[in-house]
């Protein structure tokens, strides 16, 4: 039978909601019992999470910390150490108009470091050990027909790679930047994004690592007044991938959309975390991550934080995670966290649903004449297509659709 657990919290509208004062729910200090932590950090406000450029501020995680509790940290020792890259471990190929690629940025060279302040051990050692950051700057008013494409190819499993990429879309520009990860490495990669006033920028991060690739990442964006930012994480390959996609605002009327698609096979750990910090009034955000799982030990994690700060009146936000479990032996963790410090908002909602594609679904489709392999493809393709079609780069959409089909075919063996 279908084992579908669906929780959908009502969207929170105007202030006249029971339990909400005009100041909001005051979740932050009052709801947290700090005396009963049992060694595990209690889920405090996201606003209180430590961020720092200083490696010394972050101890090595044990796996008991709130932000690491789902992650197999024991397999990440190489990635979490304060160590330089192993020589030429990463090949970076950039396809972009020449004028877009600026000199590399060293630590402290503006705008590097202005938006991305590391929020965990992985991110801090990545940036500290990435001497030079690739800097892509989309000129003001530029409108690009072709996407900027950066292909990062790992040249050896277990070899340490640190990188920091800065993308800046100047005023009123429109562009799509695709970061493609393939090959294999222990890759620690940060991405820092500035979407300046009135600009529209889409960043697509595609993880097509080999089976032994590991990848930790923090992608931070700051979205200025009336700007539109879309971040799409597509994770199909790699043994362990953990990608944090964070956004905050620098002016009113800005929009952010954080999207994700992942497909975990046997033995893969694919973790996505998103954080929307509504620190400015009258901004909009939408978060949607969709994942499929198949095979023994396939593990996915989604943790979605949304913080609507006291001053962020007029916020409209929504976040949702949906998972489709295709076989036994998989695990999908899904944690939406919504903190609201003001009741004067347009809307705020979150939802999480994990459904199974099981024998009854299969029987239903087959009883309509549809062969088994077609039935599986139909379901998974339909489910994941909602994200793929938002990329709006036909060539990439096609490649990803094919990659998803390959994942499915691999599961049939």
């Amino acid at each position, binding site marked *: 039978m279908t084992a*579908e657990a669906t929780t959908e919290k009502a969207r929170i509208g105007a202030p006249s909601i029971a339990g909400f004062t005009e100041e909001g729910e005051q979740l932050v200090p009052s709801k947290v019992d700090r005396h009963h932590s049992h060694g595990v950090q209690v889920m405090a406000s996201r606003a209180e999470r430590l961020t720092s450029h200083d490696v010394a501020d972050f101890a090595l995680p044990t796996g008991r910390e709130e932000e690491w509790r789902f992650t197999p940290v024991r397999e990440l020792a190489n990635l979490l150490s304060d160590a330089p890259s192993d020589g030429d471990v990463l090949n970076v190929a950039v396809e972009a108009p020449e004028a877009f690629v600026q000199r590399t940025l060293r630590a402290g060279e503006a705008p590097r470091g202005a938006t991305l302040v590391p929020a965990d051990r992985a991110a801090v050692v990545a940036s500290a050990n990435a001497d030079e950051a690739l800097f892509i700057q989309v000129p003001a008013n530029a409108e690009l027909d072709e996407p900027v494409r950066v292909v990062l190819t790992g040249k050896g499993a277990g070899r340490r790679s640190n990188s920091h990429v800065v993308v800046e879309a100047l005023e009123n520009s429109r562009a799509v930047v695709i970061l493609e990860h393939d090959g294999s490495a222990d890759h620690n990669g940060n991405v820092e994004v500035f979407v300046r006033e009135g600009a529209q920028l889409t960043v697509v991060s595609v993880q097509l690592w080999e089976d032994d690739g590991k990848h930790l990442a923090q992608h931070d964006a700051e979205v200025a007044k009336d700007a539109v930012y879309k971040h799409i994480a597509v994770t199909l390959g790699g043994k362990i991938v953990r990608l944090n996609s964070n956004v905050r605002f620098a002016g009113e009327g800005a929009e952010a959309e954080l999207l994700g698609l992942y497909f975990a096979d046997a033995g893969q750990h694919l973790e996505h975390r998103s954080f929307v910090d509504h620190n400015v009034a009258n901004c909009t955000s939408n978060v949607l991550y969709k994942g499929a799982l198949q095979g023994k030990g396939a593990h996915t994690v989604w943790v979605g934080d949304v913080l609507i700060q006291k001053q962020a009146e007029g916020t409209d936000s929504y976040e949702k995670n949906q998972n489709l479990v295709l076989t036994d032996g998989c695990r999908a963790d899904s944690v939406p966290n919504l903190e609201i410090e003001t009741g004067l908002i347009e809307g705020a909602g979150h939802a999480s649903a994990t459904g199974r594609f099981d024998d009854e679904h299969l029987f239903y*489709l087959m*009883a*309509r004449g*549809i062969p088994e392999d077609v039935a599986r493809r*139909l379901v998974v393709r339909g489910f994941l297509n909602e994200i793929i079609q938002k990329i709006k780069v036909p060539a990439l959409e096609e490649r990803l659709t094919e990659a998803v089909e390959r994942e499915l075919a691999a599961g049939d063996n």
Partner: protein
Amino acid sequence: MSTLEIKDLHVSIETEQGTKEILKGVSLTIRTGETHAIMGPNGSGKSTLASTIAGHPRYTVTSGSITLDGEDVLEMSVDERARAGVFLAMQYPVEVPGVTMTNFLRTAKTAIDGQAPALRTWTKDVKSAMEQLRINADFAQRNVNEGFSGGEKKRVEILQLELFKPKFAVLDETDSGLDVDALKVVSEGVNRAHAQGNMGTLLITHYTRILRYIKPDFVHVFVDGQVVEEGGPELADRLEEEGYDRYVKGAGSAVAAPAAAQA
């Protein structure tokens, strides 16, 4: 003219208490143009018969045969049976995540016919069939059965029956959970499909009320995995008055279906 022939069918399922025989020798022959009603109390094995014909993996055929124009249906996989012309309108249609009705209907039609339907006529056919069954147009863009009410799911089953044009339709308690209006709409759909003249129908029901709208040629009373009485439409009338009590007592079954109270 096609024939679906069920001969001395024995079917069992695996339960926590071990193997349990549900069907204990069922024989039934349905020909194109005929409507057979199978009636019986809860637990008598009616739905088992329906699911077994469609090939649900839960049911194991221990002996007997099912043939369609001489072809061994039991040798066919579930999808092969559907492509051979067997359609099961399910009692509990499942919600299929990620697949829109439009996509599902076209994919199934293509599989059954062996070629994609001509787009223009197909779209028109779907639209008009939906209208006749009073299915909201926006259902086409929704995922299969997702969030549909019980009655809506049943209408969607009959929509498929009309579009896929099977040789034999097995309707597994299609009437359960329908109010009178919905029952009428659904019955009209079945009658339209039947009126095309190329379909035989096996109508499984607990109640007689659907037989006011769909006229059976034959009525078979099912108790404890066997057909205990057969007759024409008049048998249904008698069941309406008397219920299943005398059969249940006669079969010595522990199934205490208070049919009279439910009729």
